[in-house]
């Protein structure tokens, strides 16, 4: 029987949310292709106890894997793949997976299908969908190489199952690793020094993107935020340019927010931004491009030039507040 192997990533000792989404993708793929589902993670066996129905649960243990390195993970994963001979190997599309999975695929003579949002089956061919042009276009791919097919799954693309006791005893797998083969030396993770704004608890957020064009125009959205009584946030390019401090960046490498209102001004809606704000209760988007991906998740939208709409909105809010 063929196997779908899902490689989970630990966060504070247990499988991360996005790993469980990848597991759900793996379960759906196993059902569709008549395969069995296996899950593996670097860490202790106990961390794998709530994964539901599986054919195998594997804890990968080795002192050289205590801290993530691309060399260590690539070698360990290659050995596990050689042992299980899976047809598909799925990963959550995290920064760590971005770092080592392409290397692993190359070592196996394959190409990772990265950041996949959906799959479909026609005959025996599985077609994988991934985003192009930062979400403005979808591409449909298939693997023309023999197994294994390596795939990483985008955050939020599949729904994680409720935790249930793992149906099989957890096996342990000890890869053979040499410390001399690990060439990078990772330091402890740390946070940026001073975090003076906590956007995660802000009830109202006005967020500005590259559509604002110029640093001098930031005052436009500052005035809107002030009129609303909202915190000001931004997409990455605004913080990269230094127009707003990095601590106001929302997204995968910035803050995760869940306000009552998230008003996105001139933001296209790339996945790395969306993961940071899609938990908002109400999303409003102002964008000149009616096809901007942000409208996919917005409750209300205004298609128009922000340089006309924002001042009009600021004035209307001031008037409403009296």
């Amino acid at each position: 029987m063929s196997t779908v192997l899902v490689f989970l990533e630990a966060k504070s000792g247990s499988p991360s949310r996005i790993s469980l989404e990848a597991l759900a993708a793996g379960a759906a793929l196993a059902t569709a292709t008549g395969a069995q589902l296996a899950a593996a993670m670097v860490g202790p066996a106990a961390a794998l106890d709530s994964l539901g129905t599986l054919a195998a649960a594997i804890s990968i243990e080795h002192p050289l894997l205590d801290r993530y390195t691309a060399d260590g993970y690539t070698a360990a994963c290659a050995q596990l793949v050689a042992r299980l001979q899976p047809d598909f190997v799925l990963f959550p599309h995290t920064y760590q997976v971005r770092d080592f999975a392409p290397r692993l695929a190359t070592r196996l003579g394959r190409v990772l299908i990265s950041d996949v949002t959906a799959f479909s089956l026609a005959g025996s061919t599985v077609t994988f969908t991934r985003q192009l042009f930062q979400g403005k276009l979808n591409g449909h791919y298939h693997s023309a190489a023999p197994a294994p097919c390596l795939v990483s799954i985008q955050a939020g693309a599949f729904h994680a199952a409720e935790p249930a006791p793992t149906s099989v005893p957890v096996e342990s797998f000890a890869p053979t690793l040499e410390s001399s083969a690990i060439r990078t030396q990772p330091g402890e993770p740390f946070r940026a020094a001073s975090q003076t704004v906590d956007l995660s608890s802000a009830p109202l957020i006005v967020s500005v993107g590259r559509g604002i064009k110029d640093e001098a125009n930031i005052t436009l959205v500052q005035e809107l935020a002030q009129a609303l009584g909202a915190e000001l946030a931004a997409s990455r390019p605004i913080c990269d340019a230094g127009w707003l401090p990095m601590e106001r960046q929302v997204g995968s490498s910035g803050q995760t927010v869940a306000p009552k209102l998230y008003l996105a001004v001139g933001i296209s809606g790339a996945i790395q931004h969306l993961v940071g704000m899609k938990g908002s209760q109400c999303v409003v988007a102002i964008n000149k491009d009616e096809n901007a991906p942000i409208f996919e998740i917005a409750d209300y939208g205004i298609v128009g030039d922000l340089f006309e709409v924002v001042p009009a909105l600021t004035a209307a809010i001031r008037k409403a507040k009296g």
Partner: protein
Amino acid sequence: MKIIVAIKQVPERDARIRIDSSGRWIALDDIEFRMNESDAYALEEALLLKEAHGGEVIVLSAGPERVGQTIREALAKGADRGIHIASDSLASLDALGVARLMAAAIADEHPDLILTGLQSDDLGLGQTGVILAELLGIPHSSLILKIEKIESGLRLLRELEDGWFQHITLPTPALLTIQSGNTKLRYATLMGIKKAKTKELRTVDAASLGTGSQPSLLLDSVALPSRQKTTQMLPGSPAEAAAALVAKLQQEVRVL
């Protein structure tokens, strides 16, 4: 330090996305091209390293003739020479195929460091650099913000998720994929643009590199995402749309 920077030419950010008649890519006829954003940051890091420690910066790019323009732009910003892997059919390759071309084209260069952007704005695979490192048998690290030269090699600042960071040290030769934001990008000066015209730009025909192999990943078709259209659009003039939104914020979202 001898540094190779791999850069990609991609469609302009605001380019109108229309699917071409093959159904496999977008129509490129009236599209402007530019340097991929994170590659521009990779180039900037390379130029900063050269300014601090001396050495040479070589830009490497694969693609059709128009790619030469993006290489010239990098030369104008201060890179010393360019290598253009000329190919009109890169789209028929997967990331491994492109990385093989790059590995073959720089086989005689023996750089201390190879930099790429962390992903391209068109395909967004985020893999070509990492694959190249494995093909060359050198260590790599991705999502790098800062590079510092130290005795044993390099000390790096790597971006992690949710506002976390990490330092990493690794020996050279190495390959790094660069994340945007650590530095301000420079503009080419008039002098730089003039000088760029005289700098060496070597064109290598992709077919001559002898890496030809069947791709293991195929892009069958592209499609505009099917919108679920849950968004309630507020039409009218800016003032009308603004008034309609204020009414929603008062009555339905209840935040005003």
